[in-house]
């Protein structure tokens, strides 16, 4: 999949874009956090953001998720300009960027169910979806555990499960491979590829070449001058 990078580059007019970025940059007090970058990602494809530490991968994801404003340029997710104040935008974008806040008093399956219910699902439907997610991420035997009882790798898997427990069109993940062993990384790659096959636009930052190769249709390399 990683070999067909160019196939996913949106070039032709009329193509449905998942993400469009035009001269986007972020700087604080003249110090650039993200140097000017432009790219497009087709809807229903996966793009990996690569670059050295400090190149601005997390900053780019945070800007695209509406968590911080850019100092220059513009970005669109789907047809919508990035603006987290817009309910339609919030409905469209899911993600795991930085620390995930777990509900300390709910078990894993209840947390996933609660996320589904909050987006309008009936409780039985949300419960079924939670069971399926726990199964996909290999957390079924931990379903009645509380989050503080998880190992760091299990917590990372659960964070990813939480991120996709809700409806979304575009998924943004910051280093999903963090703290995962080889087997879990393969598992995550399979899940992510499955989401893309179902029509999700995926944008993820990663340092792991195998994950990038297994999941992404193209890469966006960030550099620092």
């Amino acid at each position: 999949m990683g070999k067909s990078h160019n196939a996913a580059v949106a070039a032709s007019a009329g193509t449905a874009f998942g993400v469009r970025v035009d001269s986007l940059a972020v700087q604080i007090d003249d110090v650039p956090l993200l140097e000017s970058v432009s790219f497009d990602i087709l809807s229903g494809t996966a793009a990996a953001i690569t670059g050295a530490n400090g190149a601005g991968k997390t900053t780019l994801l945070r800007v695209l998720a509406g968590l911080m404003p850019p100092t220059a340029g513009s970005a669109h997710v789907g047809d919508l300009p990035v603006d987290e104040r817009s309910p339609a935008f919030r409905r469209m974008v899911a993600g795991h960027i930085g620390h995930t806040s777990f509900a300390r008093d709910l078990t894993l399956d209840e947390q996933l169910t609660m996320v589904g219910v909050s987006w309008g699902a009936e409780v039985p439907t949300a419960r079924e979806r939670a069971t399926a997610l726990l199964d996909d991420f290999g957390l079924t035997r931990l379903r009645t555990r509380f989050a503080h009882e998880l190992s760091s790798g299990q917590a990372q898997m659960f964070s990813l499960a939480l991120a996709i427990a809700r409806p979304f069109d575009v998924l943004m993940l910051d280093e999903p491979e963090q703290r995962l062993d080889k087997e879990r990384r393969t598992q995550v790659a399979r899940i992510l590829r499955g989401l893309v096959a179902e029509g999700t636009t995926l944008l993820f930052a990663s340092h792991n070449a195998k994950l990038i190769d297994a999941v992404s249709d193209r890469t966006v390399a960030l550099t620092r001058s």
Partner: protein
Amino acid sequence: MASNSTLRRLRRLRRDRQAQSESDLTYVIYVSVMLLLIVGVPIIRTAVLGLATPDVLALVAGPAAPAVLAAITGLLFAALVVLGRTRGPALMDPFRSVVVASNHLPRRHTLRRPFLVSASQLVVALAAVALILASALAVAGAATALSVIAFVAATVLIGIFASIAWLLGQSVSTQASQRVAAVLAVVSLGTAVIPGGLVATPWGWIALLYPSSAFVAWPALGALAALVILAAFAIPRLLDSIRGPELTAQAQRWSSAATFSATADLAGAFAEFRSLPTVGRRWRAVQNVPTPVVMFVRDLVGSLRSPERPIVAALSLLVAGFLLASTSSVPATVAWAPALLGGIFAFLALGVWSDGFRHASDTAVGVPLYGFGVVKEFALHATLPAVGVIVFVGSGALAASVAGASLLSAAVAVAFALFVITVRMMNATKGQMPLELLAPIPTAAGDLSGMLIVLWQADALLLISVASIVLASTWLSAPLLLATLPVASTIVLWLASRNIAAAR
């Protein structure tokens, strides 16, 4: 004994280490003495004179005062047994705790000194309170000098016994400590109201020794002394039965809390002591019911998974309701005291049911996790505390009205506690302290940045304290208060929404 010689060597090593200097100890003594003279003495004098005023004296020298003291003392024992599980008296810094937990020396030797230090601090604190109270009664002519001496001596004995109860809490399991505390609380409240009940319990014996102009109940003092001597024999066994992992966990928790406090992160410090869920993992927290009920059940079940927290919250809200409503049944000059205490009790108790607000606040600043929307999520999480306020504060306030408070003041108490929920919401949205506050503010009186940090950290509690005192003001009528509180709540909620917007 081999263990004694080993301990002696270890202590000598510690004493002789480079970092330790005699001037450290001298400085601590100097600061303590100066603080006592400059700050302590005026406060003690003001407290004695304040207690000796006619209005207050009518309460502290009233016929119900000994029974109230007995109940408070019994509840103190119960509280200390519970506290032992969080912060026991035999505690050291994390490094020494690890050493003690992992070495071969009997804990009756290694933990004796920290226990004695903690016990001494508790005894001194209780004796100081007793001395202030007894002195006030003596100044007002309501007690003889001999009864004052006997009362303070009895308080010292009670302090020692309370330290042993505290140690008991540290050495038994959480469940056992909760059961012991529950029994103590029920018995202490029961014996305080049952005629003749004071004769049967240690906390009743100190009540019998309450300073007065009557004869001193020497047998009660003798019984207390005998009880303390008997209980002291249990100290070595209790020290031995403290578990190593518990010891290190407590030390680590307190060390982390101290670090959070030193960096002015009081929320982080409190979070260290918020117990994690331990039971009910198979209870269904998410039920197939309408959304507002889903969230209420979710919060209720989640809360019950750390059972001691909702129990403490419910009891505290009962007390808060009683105190807040009592402002109309005590003399106007002292009405601020139950109002202030009630407000603080309500604020602290509602912290238990603010987990939902804290979680909503945490998730509000990231990529949306829940589909409710921030405002609706906060509102849904407010259901449980609101029901808790209506049930428990309402019950406490009604009890106060039975005891003489007006029904209108009971309604004000509930309305005020509902206002406290909105302050809790605002508090949950505060986020990290702005770094600008750490910048020094040089003035002729010194660096004022510390004051700003304290103000920022304690703003919610200060707001509640001021509002509680206003609640007791005679110039505000109950209907006016009932009309004002919703307006105040709206302003607080607006501030909370600003906090969320700023954090994004």
